[in-house]
């Protein structure tokens, strides 16, 4: 790894032909990821809008329905994701130091945490299914308008489902990063892919930080 960097003084490792410098390349990649995250915000924004509209139209049904979400599993998942953000940040830091082994170690930890999130989510979905909380003919909740409660659960499944898909994509990205780290690609000078992957991972975590209170916590006291 070190020998590659030293032999390619004119054209540093990882620099693509159309950039003038690694700095320009790094700036471009980071900006690109930020712009992509903005589109993601708007992507989820459409769903948050639908949620806000219906929650203000049917506050009572949403309150009743939200009580049927599994708060213990949701809280556990929140903890898992926050921890995974920490390990991801450590992995990015390690990549900036050019410490490939530490990068892999922290990436593996992040990956396991992300996968456990999905396992917990799977358990939650199964329980929801048995509790007749999946919108459709078998949907049933007592004590409120069934249609409105279904709206809540439709949004619950779409929002958490899309989030889960983003998690799965994230796990794929982590594997690519592990592979690159294993090949010794990351150096003190070149670690853009890790930075960009880190941005993505933190973003997916942050989406959950919004989903958890909106779907599990709000109006639970009612």
């Amino acid at each position, binding site marked *: 790894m070190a020998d590659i960097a030293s032999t390619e003084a004119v054209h540093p490792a990882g620099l693509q032909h159309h950039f003038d410098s690694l700095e320009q390349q790094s700036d471009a990649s980071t900006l690109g990821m930020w712009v992509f995250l903005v589109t993601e915000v708007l992507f989820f924004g459409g769903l948050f809008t639908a949620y806000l509209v219906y929650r203000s139209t049917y506050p*009572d049904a949403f309150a009743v329905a939200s009580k049927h979400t599994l708060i213990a599993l949701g809280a556990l998942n929140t903890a898992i994701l926050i921890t995974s953000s920490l390990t991801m940040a450590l992995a990015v830091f390690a990549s900036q130091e050019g410490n490939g082994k530490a990068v892999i170690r922290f990436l593996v930890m992040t990956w396991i945490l992300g996968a456990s999130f999905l396992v917990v989510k799977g358990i939650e979905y199964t329980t929801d299914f048995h509790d007749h909380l999946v919108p459709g003919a078998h949907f049933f909740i007592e004590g409120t308008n069934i249609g409105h409660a279904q709206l809540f659960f439709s949004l619950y499944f779409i929002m958490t489902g899309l989030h889960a898909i983003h998690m799965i994509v994230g796990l794929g990205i982590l594997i690519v990063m592990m592979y690159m780290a294993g090949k010794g690609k990351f150096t003190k000078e070149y670690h853009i892919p890790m930075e960009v992957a880190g941005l993505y991972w933190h973003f997916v975590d942050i989406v959950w930080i919004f989903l958890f209170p909106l779907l599990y916590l709000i109006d639970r006291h009612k």
Partner: protein
Amino acid sequence: MLSGIPLFPEEASTLATKVDALYFFLVAVSAFFVVLIAGTILYFAIKYRRRSEDEHGASIHGAILLETVWTIIPLGIALVMFIWSADIYFQAYEPPKSNSAVNVYVLAKQWMWKFQHMDGQREINELHVPVNTEIKLIMTSQDVIHSFFVPDFRIKMDVLPGRYRTLWFQATKPGTYHLFCAEYCGAGHSRMVGQVIVMKPADYQAWIAGGVGTDTLAAAGQKVFTNLACVTCHSPDSGARGPMLSGLFDQKVRLQNGQTVVADDAYLRESIMDPGAQVVAGYQPIMPTYQGLVNEEQLLELIEYIKTLKPAPSAPTVTTPEPDGHAAAPKTPAMSSPAGAPAAHR
């Protein structure tokens, strides 16, 4: 050659002349700017046409004054348009408060228009109305979104499923006018057309009188009310399980959650279809939903019936006997009386 082509539709409502005035103003402004810009471009293009291959244009950067002028002037013109057109919008979409308006219920479905007159006449794809009278249409859809459009009146409003929307007009000329569905609604969209027939008052009276001997809308609603045994709960005798309906329409109602709503068409509809949504303060949410038990037409009848229930008069009248001998036949005078309902059966 073009003389056979009409350029704008007939002005057949009080609104039409106002809309046309605004339209002509906009046409004039547009024509002025199109001629100004096209003319200036042509003039410059010819005057400053390239005369030799190596010629260059003058080096002019811009002029703040000009930029300001051609920002402010269009903005000013736009504001005039805005105020003028907003005023017309209010007139078109805010039904007059007068009581003299003739109410007609409009039910849209794929692919026809159904009309229910207060006096019981029902029409499909034809709407008879008197001239020079305010007509109020209370509209809903049974399936997808439709749009009620009468070009000669310059009125249009989308008709939504699950909602009541009110549109009004006052026709100024007797005649027959196109009625179009303007919101795409499927295969028969372009065949979801009809006619609005505007009649002189005398003709209209004759038409109303010539109707088949059907119940008035309210009377039909009363039948539904009885058949569904609504009175079991909505009566003074029933231990006050449900709120009293007399004199309810258009009044403010306090809800369980502390909010206040006006008991309008939409509220009544929701209370029948989804009783748990907005429960009146002091009552339990025990009413079952009637979704699937009543269709949109019966709903309109029920609402019309509830509208006719005047504040409970102290002098009770006799219950109308029900032909079908319904088990829960009402014995509660205050509720089942069609007091104040136009009970003139023909």
